[in-house]
């Protein structure tokens, strides 16, 4: 216990201070009334995002440009916590970043598939800098997708992509590769838990398990009810290692034809959390809300473990994701008032 206190006292204080700088409910009330990307930028200019947003050169930036700048701020937080955390804790935080490498890799593969120019693809990538070990330049310079996959040999994505390559060739679609990249990223995060020990491992396993459950549920909703994939196919895309949801639960959920059957198939606490959902579209926001509640609990329990900085980073990610959704909605001309029901911003007030 004493060694945990010594190891985690600095990083937990830092994470708490950073949580204090998250956007307030008042910020969100104002943001949800904004009518243009410019207005959102003006408001965010008065928050901790000001520094990251000042790097935007374009006079009238679009949602994608702002999204990259907001993520720069998120990666800045990762850097700070990676420096502050003890080695084993930092390793699991570092592994969370593999999901952004996965996003970059999917962008690179899409660029190759669509024959985009190198600068065009490069402009869409998250600016991870030294946080990423992806051979971006080599992939940008590769001739085709199979060659790009060969270049990934030292990364966690290589084996999964090699497995999906025959299916990619048969279907002529990037979907199998994208699913493989996402699955590999989640598996990489989960495998990092093995390095932790004791209380650290237990609490991190629960948190990462919750996150995997949420990923599985949101994928299931997306694949089954928006992409219209068969239950048999969806079951094969399930990620193992969740907290409450086993293969059988998820199999039953995937076969559910309507929302009540889905809820009936789910175990507690997900059944209760999703009870208010009247339609499929509301499920992601309800899942976010439930996750945010659980993340905030970490701040008033034993603070000297990796769960606390992990929780902060998840909260920050949800905040950035919500801001990007808001900006995209504004850019597409959707009324922002209607978003209030669909997005769940993590505010520092939640969980207090």
């Amino acid at each position, binding site marked *: 216990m004493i060694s945990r206190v010594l190891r985690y006292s600095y990083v937990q204080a830092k994470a708490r201070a950073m949580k204090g700088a998250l956007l307030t409910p008042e910020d969100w009330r104002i943001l949800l009334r904004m009518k243009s990307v410019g207005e959102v930028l003006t408001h965010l200019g008065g928050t901790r995002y000001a520094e990251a947003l000042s790097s935007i050169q374009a006079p009238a930036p679009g949602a994608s440009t702002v999204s990259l700048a907001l993520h720069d701020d998120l990666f800045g937080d990762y850097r700070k916590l990676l420096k502050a955390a003890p080695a084993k804790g930092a390793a699991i935080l570092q592994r969370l970043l593999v999901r952004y490498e996965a996003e970059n890799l999917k962008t690179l593969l899409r660029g190759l598939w669509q024959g985009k120019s190198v600068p065009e693809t490069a402009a869409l990538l998250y600016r991870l800098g030294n946080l990423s070990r992806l051979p971006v330049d080599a992939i940008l310079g590769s001739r085709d997708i199979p060659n790009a996959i060969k270049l990934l040999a030292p990364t966690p994505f290589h084996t999964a992509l090699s497995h999906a390559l025959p299916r990619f060739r048969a279907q002529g679609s990037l979907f199998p590769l994208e699913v493989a990249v996402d699955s590999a990223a989640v598996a990489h995060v989960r495998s990092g838990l093995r390095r932790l020990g004791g209380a650290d491992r237990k609490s991190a396993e629960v948190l990462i398990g919750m996150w995997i459950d949420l990923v599985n549920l949101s994928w299931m909703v997306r694949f089954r009810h928006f992409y219209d994939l068969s*239950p048999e196919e969806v*079951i*094969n895309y399930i990620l193992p290692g969740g907290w409450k949801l086993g293969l059988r639960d998820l*199999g039953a959920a995937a076969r559910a034809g309507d929302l009540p059957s889905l809820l009936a198939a789910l175990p507690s606490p997900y059944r209760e959390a999703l009870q208010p959902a009247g339609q499929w579209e509301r499920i992601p926001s309800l899942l976010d809300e439930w996750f945010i509640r659980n993340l905030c609990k970490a701040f008033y329990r034993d603070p000297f473990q990796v769960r606390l900085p992990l929780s902060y980073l998840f909260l920050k990610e949800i905040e950035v994701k919500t801001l990007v959704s808001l900006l995209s909605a504004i850019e597409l001309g959707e009324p922002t008032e209607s978003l209030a029901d669909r997005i769940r911003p993590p505010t520092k007030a939640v969980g207090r």
Partner: protein
Amino acid sequence: MFRSEKLARITIQVPEPFISATTGVLTRFKLLHLIRIDETPLGRLGYGAETDGSLLAEFENLLHEADALAEALHAPLDGAVLRDEVIPEKEVFKVRERLGEIRGEVEATLDDLESTAEILREKKIRLEKFTLLPGDLDFSRLSGRRFVNWKIGLTPTQGIEKLEESLSEVHHALIELGPAAQERSVVFVFGLLKDATIFERALKGAFFEAIEIRPDVSGKVEDVVAALQSEIAGIDTKIAALSGQRDIFRGKFGEELQLLREKIITARRMLSARRYFGKIDKRFLITGWIPERLFGQLAEEIGRVAEGQALFEKVDPEDLREVREGVVKIPILFNNPLLISPFEKLTGLYGTPSYKEVEPTVFFALTFLLLFGMMFGDAGQGAVLFLLGYYIFRRLYKYMDYGIILMECGVSATLFGFLYGTVFGMETLLPALWFRPMESISYFVKVTLSLGIAMVSLGLILNLINAIRLKEYEKLLSASGFAGAVLYWIAAGLAMKRLLTGAVAPGELRIFGWTAAVLMIVIVLHRPLYRLIVKRERPARVIQPGLAGELMESVVELFDDLIRFIANTVSFIRVAAFALSHAALFIAVFSIANVVSHQQGGGASYWLTVAIGNVVIILLEGLVVSIQTVRLEYYEFFGKFFRGGGERFQPIDREIDSGDRPRAPRP
């Protein structure tokens, strides 16, 4: 040899119909350093010429085709020497026609070879997959099932549980036959034919890669494998025959393809070159630098191809205002014999000399070889270096220059090996024609100090020549000029006398003291003296408030240069030090060899240790001595006289091929 090639600036005016022939002469002639039209006032006024874009694109396509043919025939791409005149407008049809004929003749064989290779690849993949299956699996017992659907294939091992779950609602059997590469397993899946769609969907999600069992495949797996192996052997034979045919075609067309390729490149180069020319009405203008001695020959050749309608203007660099004002630099064309020219690369690493200064490559080469030989003197190891250099020279065309340098270093090391009486570190086999370094250390130090004085003196003399050529007369009276040189020589003479005879007469010291005092005063006062005596300025203009600062600067320069003279000279002691460390390493190697042979009880281990030691010394000392030699050359020798800042002569063909030389700043 001691100065770069004398150049002249020429401007050629050619009527449009003769531009291809003229460009052809220029690219064949090579020795024209083109001045791009956009770097001249004419170009900035918009008188740049344009090239025929569609013809250029046509040659690009032909080059791709020639490359593809050469690659398919495994024929070398480079090496042809073009002797004919190339006119792009005429050549395009001939080249296109000939490439078409060659392609027509070889196409069937190459296509057959390619498709057979593809079939072979597929068969090998099938064989690889079938070898994963149990040998006694009998396909004939599986065929013709009316109600059962089955598949064999590879699936990620960690996904098998999910695959089971996805099939859990239908009747099925999933048998794991064994592991395969890349964390996959071979699985055999059975189910009812009516559930085939569910099976398809589940297998799709599980990234299942089916092993295709064609309807004609029957019998046991081991029989199928044997049949595939036999088929592969047959295809291998066919490929060998087709490859033989391809080799015949290569022999028949290889050289011609190289020649056609060279013609295409030349034509493309000629068309590209036009972008760098000027054009006024129907006449092209070509401007550049050319070796003066070649002007007559070039004018005659161009006059012939342009049917006497070309106009030439030749200007001496001295007559160009831009050159006098330093706005335009005259490029440097090195002019060294074959054995010296490889050292131009090493000179170039330090800098490019300006047109008027001494071209130092020959001094660099000779002193480099001398210093290297002195430090690496060993007849046996020198011979090894020579052979290594010879191998590079003959086999690695790209590094031919380094091969020559290595051969020359080998010769020098061998000569010094004989002078020191050393062969592979053994000092008993040869008599020393001069002295043995380990036995005459103090003598060796004196020799290297003398060498240092000689090289520093040579540097000072070259500096005086450069100062005169560049009309830097004021510097002649400075510490780095004539005054400093005289001071150094007197001091060095006295030091040498003391070293060799052990004494210096008091009278000599007195004379040195007085001379040094006078020279130092001259050095300190060299700027005002120059202005008073040479520039004939009035004393009132010379003696101004800034004079004190000027004198102070001269004093600092004087002390700085005096310290440098001493440091530069003493630095040459390292030649003796590295030669001694070379010999000391051998002592270590022989000691280790003795210990090893005593322990192993045999002579073979002794000689093996000596051989390994020699290899290590060649690699280690070779590297260290080369670095030290380059260091002495650059810092102690070049530092004395080299000014640099010149521009290297770029032959027209390389200039066009590079296409991206940085533009000269606008005056």
